[in-house]
C-alpha cells in the first residue's frame, strides 16, 4: 500500500432475524425474545467496538399457502423499545432499527426516535422503509390504504417531516435558568407547520433538539429509487451487493450521486449485509459452512422456498429428488395479493418465476443436485467463509478497494453467534490499523465519521 491512510472499516451487528438464515435447531441457539439474549448480543458488539446494532422489522407474521409460516424463528420485540432497553446495558454502541413509514405518523416516529437519541446520549439511527403490501395494513388503523406509486413519496415526506420536527427547537432552546425563570429560549420552541401530499399537521413538537441533531438516517435498497433517496438524504445505505466487483460498481454508482445533492463522498456510508462462517483451517471453515447451510435449508424449508417460486403447494414433492419438471404458476403475482407467500419481501426477487425454475432445473441437471441442494446453492451462500485471517483480509480488501465502507454482519446463532467474530476477526482488523481499538467519540455520528450537523445558529446566519 502507498502512504494513503487506511480507510476505517464500519461494522454493524444485525440481531438475527426471522428468516432461515437464523438457525434455531442448534444446541447453541438461545431465546429470541428474552432480554438476556439482547443484552448478550449488544455487549458483545460493544466489546468488539462495532459502530452499531441493527434490528429489522416485520409488522405481520408471514404466511404461506394461507397459513402462518412455521419453519423460521418468529416473535420479536418492538424495535425502538428494545433498542432503548439495550441502551441501558451499553455505553457507546449505536442503536439502529427499522421503523415503517407507512403505518406510523411523523409526530410519533420523530418523538420516539428523538427520545431514543436523548436517552442514549446520541446513539440513535433510523432505517426508513415503506410497506409493500396490504397484508401488513390489516393490523393498523389505516388498513392497506397506500397506493403503490405513493410509497416512496410517503417515505420521503415522512423523512422530511420528521426532519422538520427535529429542527423545530433551537440547539440551545432550553435555558432552564432558575434564577431568571427563563426555561425556553423562545416562546414558540418546537413550532411547526407541514402541509403536504401525505401530511397536514401543525403544533409544538415536544422534544428539544437531540444530541445528534437528529438520528442517523439509513436507507435500505438497491433499486434506482432507493439509491437516489439514499444519496439525497441518508447517512448510510444497506445493500445486498456483497460480492466484490458488484460491490465496487454499486459503491461507485451511489457515491457518484452525492455531488448533485451537495454532499461529500464520505457523507454516505455503504454497508452491504454479510454472513460469515469461520474455521481453524480453510477446509474446516468450508465444512462448517456446509453444515450451517444444511441447517438453514432443511427439507421442509427447501420445499417452502420452491413454493415461493412455483407459487403453488409442493408438499408432495420430494426435497431430495430433482427440481420439479412442471412450470410455476404465474397468474397471481406478488402485487396482486394472490401470491402463495405473504409478508416476505424476498419473493419480489422472482420477477420471472419461469426463468428462475429453468435456472434451478439446469443447475440440478448439470451437477446432479437435488431440489434441496439447488436451494442451498441459490439461497444459502455465506459471504465470508474461511479462517479468521482470511475473513479479516477479505473484509479489509473490500473496504480499502472501495467495494464497501464496511458490513452489516448477521450471525446465524442467537445470541452467541457474534462472539467468535469479536474474539477472532476483530483483533486482526485492529492489527491492520483498519478498525478502531477504542471508540473515539460518543455519538453514532462520531463512530461513522459523519460531520456534525450544522447548528441552528449556522442555519440562521
Amino acid at each position: 500500500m502507498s502512504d494513503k491512510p487506511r480507510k476505517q472499516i464500519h461494522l454493524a451487528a444485525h440481531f438475527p432475524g426471522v428468516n432461515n438464515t437464523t438457525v434455531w435447531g442448534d444446541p447453541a441457539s438461545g431465546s429470541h425474545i428474552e432480554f438476556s439474549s439482547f443484552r448478550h448480543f449488544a455487549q458483545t458488539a460493544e466489546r468488539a467496538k462495532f459502530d452499531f446494532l441493527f434490528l429489522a422489522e416485520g409488522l405481520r407474521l408471514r404466511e404461506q399457502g394461507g397459513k402462518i409460516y412455521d419453519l423460521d424463528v418468529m416473535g420479536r420485540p418492538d424495535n425502538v423499545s428494545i433498542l432503548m432497553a439495550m441502551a441501558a446495558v451499553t455505553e457507546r454502541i449505536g442503536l439502529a432499527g427499522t421503523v415503517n413509514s407507512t403505518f406510523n405518523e411523523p409526530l410519533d416516529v420523530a418523538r420516539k426516535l428523538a427520545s431514543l437519541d436523548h436517552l442514549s446520549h446520541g446513539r440513535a439511527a433510523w432505517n426508513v422503509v415503506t410497506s409493500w403490501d396490504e397484508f401488513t395494513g390489516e393490523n393498523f388503523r389505516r388498513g392497506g390504504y397506500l397506493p403503490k406509486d405513493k410509497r416512496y413519496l410517503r417515505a420521503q415526506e415522512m423523512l422530511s417531516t420528521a426532519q422538520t420536527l427535529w429542527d423545530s427547537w433551537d440547539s440551545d432552546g432550553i435555558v432552564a435558568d432558575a434564577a431568571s425563570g427563563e426555561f425556553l429560549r423562545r416562546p414558540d420552541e418546537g413550532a411547526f407547520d407541514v402541509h403536504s401530499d401525505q401530511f397536514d399537521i401543525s403544533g409544538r413538537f415536544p422534544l428539544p433538539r437531540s444530541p445528534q441533531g437528529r438520528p442517523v438516517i439509513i436507507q435500505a435498497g438497491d433499486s434506482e429509487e432507493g439509491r437516489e433517496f439514499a444519496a439525497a438524504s441518508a447517512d448510510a445505505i444497506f445493500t445486498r451487493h456483497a460480492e466484490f466487483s458488484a460491490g465496487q460498481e454499486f459503491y461507485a454508482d451511489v457515491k457518484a450521486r452525492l455531488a448533485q445533492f451537495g454532499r461529500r463522498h464520505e457523507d454516505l456510508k455503504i454497508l452491504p449485509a454479510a454472513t460469515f462462517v469461520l474455521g481453524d483451517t480453510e477446509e474446516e471453515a468450508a465444512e462448517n459452512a456446509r453444515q450451517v447451510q444444511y441447517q438453514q435449508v432443511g427439507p421442509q424449508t427447501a420445499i417452502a422456498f420452491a413454493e415461493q417460486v412455483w407459487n403453488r403447494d409442493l408438499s408432495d414433492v420430494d426435497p431430495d429428488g430433482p427440481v420439479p419438471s412442471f412450470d410455476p404458476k404465474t397468474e397471481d403475482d406478488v402485487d396482486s395479493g394472490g401470491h402463495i407467500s405473504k409478508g416476505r419481501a424476498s419473493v419480489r426477487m422472482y420477477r420471472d418465476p419461469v426463468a428462475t425454475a429453468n435456472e434451478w432445473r439446469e443447475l440440478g441437471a448439470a451437477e446432479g443436485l437435488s431440489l434441496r441442494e439447488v436451494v442451498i446453492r441459490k439461497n444459502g451462500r455465506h459471504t465470508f467463509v474461511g479462517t479468521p485471517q482470511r475473513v479479516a483480509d477479505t473484509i479489509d480488501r473490500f473496504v480499502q478497494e472501495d467495494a464497501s465502507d464496511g458490513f452489516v454482519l448477521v450471525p446465524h446463532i442467537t445470541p452467541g453467534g457474534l462472539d467468535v467474530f469479536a474474539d477472532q476477526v476483530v483483533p486482526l482488523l485492529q492489527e491492520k490499523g483498519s478498525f478502531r481499538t477504542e471508540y473515539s467519540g460518543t455519538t453514532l455520528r462520531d463512530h461513522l465519521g459523519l460531520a456534525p450537523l450544522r447548528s441552528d445558529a449556522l442555519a440562521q446566519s
Partner: protein
Amino acid sequence: MSTPPFHLAIALDGTGWHPASWREPGARPGDQFGPEFWVDQARAAEAGFASFVTIEDGFTAVRKPSDEGRTDRSEGHLDATLIAQRVGPVTEHLGIVPTVITTHTEPFHVSTQIATLDWVTSGRAGQRIKVSADPAEAALFGRRDPKAETRESLFDETADHVEVQRGLWDSWEDDAEIRDVATGRFIDREKLHYIDFVGSHFAVRGPSITPRPPQGQPVVTALAHVDTAYRLAARAADVVFTTPDGAGRDGPTGDAATTLAATRAAEAEVGRTGDPLLVVGDLLVVLDDDAASARAHLSRLDAVAPLRSDAAILAGTVGQVADTLESWAAAGLSGARLRPAVTASDLPRITRELAPELARRGLTRSAWGEPGTFRDLLGLPRPADRYAHA
C-alpha cells in the same frame, strides 16, 4: 413475601407536579431529557419500596394550553414508554407504568411496546391509558377533529384500544414456540391466533409479532374522576386511580369511600367479570418537617406559578400524609399514588421518611423479596390465555 395491604406508588413527572418545581434547589431542570434524571428517580422509588412508578406523558410541548406563548414553564416530554424501557433494565422489583395516549396511537404498536417492556423487565410492565380530547394534540396528527367526536366515543375507542392490546398479548399461547427439529417447525401455528377485532375506529387482524409477555397480561391502569372514566376503567383496567377529596371537571370527587363506591358501581354497570379493580387514591404532596413550613413552601411556589390540581393537595408532614393514607386504607382503598410537588425535595421525603413510617404502621413492605412480576406485587393472578384450549 406476601402482598402488603396497601401500595405506595409514585407519579413521576419531570421536576415535579408543581409548575414552579423546576426552579427549586436541586431540581436539575436541564437534565430532564437525559437518562440519569429518570434512572435516579426510579431507583429512589425502588429504594423506598414503592410498588410502582407511573410516568406522565403528552404529545405537545406545552403542558397546559394556557402556557402557550410563555417561556417560564418547564415544557417538553420524552416518550414515557421509552423512559420506562430505559429504567427497566436498571431496576429490579417495582412495576413501571408509562402513560399511553390511546386516541392517536396504534393499538398494535402499543401492544408490542408494552409486551417488550414486560420482556425487558421480566414481567414488571404496566401502562396508564389516557384519552386525548385536546385539539392541539389532534393537530399534531392531522387525522381527526376531536370537536366532531363525543367524549363517549373517545372513551369507547380507548376501551377498544385496550381490548386489542389484550387480544394481541393472548394471540400467542405461552407454549407456542416448540422448536421441533424433526418436523422443521419452530412454532406450533395452532397456538397462534388471529384476533380479528373490528370496532368503530379500527380493525386489527393479528396475531401479534411479539410472544405472550411474562405476565400474560401486563397491568393496565386508568385515572378516573367522572362516570365515563370510571366505566372505562371498569371495562379495560386492572387498577384505577381516583382523586379522594379532589375535584374533576364536573366538580368535587368525594372522599375515599365515595370514589371506591363509584368504582364498584361502575363495575356493576358494565358487568365487569374477574378481579375487581384495585382502587388507588392520588394525592399531591408538599412535605416538610412541620406543617407550617410545608404550607409556607407551597405558598412560595404558588406565588411563582399557581398550582391547579385534580388530586387533593396535602402540604404537611410525613406523619400527616401517613394519617391520610391510613384512613384511605381503612376506607378500603388498595393504595396511594403520590404526586411529589417538587421531586427534588419531596421524593426523598417520600422514600426515606414516609415509606418507613407506612411500613411501621403495617401498611406497606419494608424489604423486597425475590424479584417477581408486577402482577405478583399487586396480588393479581397471571390470567389464562383466552385462546388456550379454544
